[in-house]
C-alpha cells in the first residue's frame, strides 16, 4: 500500500517545497500540499509542518501558526495515531499547539545558526527505527530559536516516557560544540507520549538527495515506511 503524506504551508513557510520534494522522492506515494486556511485534511499517513518563519515569527515563533484553521485537523490527524513531523518552525508550532512538551527559546549565544550539525538517537521510536543506536547523523540546522526548554518535572517525564528522539552530539571529525544552541540536555528532537508526533530542529529534508552534503535525512522517512 502506498504511503500518503501532506505538507502544510503557512505564510512565511520556506521549507515547504523542500519537504514536498523530500516526501515525493522518498515515499513515491501521493503527496499533498495544504494551505493553512484549509479546513480539511486528506487521510494521509504523515503530515509535515515545515520549517520557515510562519507569520514572520511575530509574537513568538510558531504562535500565530498554532492558531491557524488547519490546526484542528492536524490535531485530529495526530489523535488518530497517524504520524506528524514538525521540522524547525514546525517543531516550534507543535510546542505552541501543545502537542509536544516544552518550548523553543532564543539560541543561548543569540546567533542564528545555519550550518551542519550532528545528532544521534536517544530513545527508540518509529521515526528513528532505521537508525543504529551509535550512528551519528549529519543534518543541517537553520534557526534562531532552537534552544529547547522545559522544567525539571517535564524533563523527567520526557526521560521516563523515552520521548527524547534526538540529541546534538559531536561529529566524528568535527570540532563543533556538542550542544549548539543551549538546549536542555542537548535535546534536538522530542516525541509526544504516544510517539506518533515528532518535532526536531535539524532539517532532514535538506539531507537526502545526491546534491546534498549528507543523505542521513532519508533515514527518518525510511524508518516510517519500513
Amino acid at each position: 500500500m502506498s504511503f500518503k503524506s501532506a505538507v502544510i504551508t503557512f505564510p512565511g513557510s520556506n521549507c515547504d517545497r523542500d519537504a514536498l520534494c523530500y516526501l515525493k522522492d522518498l515515499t513515491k506515494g501521493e503527496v499533498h500540499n495544504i494551505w493553512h486556511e484549509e479546513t480539511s485534511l486528506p487521510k494521509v499517513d504523515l503530515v509535515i509542518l515545515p520549517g520557515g518563519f510562519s507569520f514572520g515569527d511575530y509574537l513568538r515563533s510558531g504562535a500565530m501558526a498554532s492558531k491557524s484553521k488547519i490546526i484542528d485537523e492536524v490535531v485530529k490527524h495526530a489523535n488518530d495515531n497517524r504520524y506528524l513531523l514538525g521540522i524547525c518552525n514546525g517543531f516550534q508550532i507543535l510546542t505552541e499547539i501543545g502537542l509536544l512538551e516544552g518550548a523553543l527559546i532564543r539560541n543561548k549565544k543569540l546567533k542564528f545558526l545555519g550550518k551542519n550539525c550532528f545528532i544521534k538517537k536517544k530513545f527508540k521510536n518509529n521515526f528513528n527505527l532505521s537508525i543504529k543506536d551509535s550512528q551519528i547523523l549529519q543534518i543541517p540546522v537553520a534557526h534562531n530559536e532552537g534552544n529547547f526548554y522545559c522544567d525539571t518535572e517535564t524533563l523527567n517525564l520526557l526521560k521516563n516516557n523515552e520521548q527524547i528522539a534526538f540529541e546534538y552530539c559531536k561529529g566524528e571529525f568535527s570540532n563543533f560544540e556538542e550542544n549548539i544552541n543551549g538546549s536542555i540536555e542537548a535535546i534536538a528532537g522530542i516525541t509526544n507520549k504516544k510517539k506518533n508526533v515528532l518535532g526536531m530542529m535539524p532539517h532532514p529534508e535538506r539531507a537526502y538527495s545526491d546534491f546534498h552534503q549528507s543523505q542521513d535525512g532519508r533515514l527518518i522517512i525510511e524508518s516510517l515506511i519500513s
Partner: protein
Amino acid sequence: MRIKILVRLKGQILEPQGKVIEQSLNSLGFTEFSNIRQGKLIELDLPDNISKEEKVQKIDSACKKLLVNDIIEEYEVLG
C-alpha cells in the same frame, strides 16, 4: 481605555539579550546596573464602558490563548 501588558521570560530562564545589554551598559560606565532582563510590552485599546471584571477576564483569556506562553513566560497588566 489603553491596556498595557508586560510579558517577560520567567525568572529561571536564561535571557541572553539582557546579559548583552548589561555588558554594553557596564562598558559605557553604568557599572551599577545589574541583572538586566528584557521583556516585551503589548498595548491595546478596550472600550471604556467595559466592566472591570470583564476587562480582567478578557485580558487573561487573550494572554492564555495567544499572547503569553506560560511554559516560558509570565505577564502583568500595568496600570
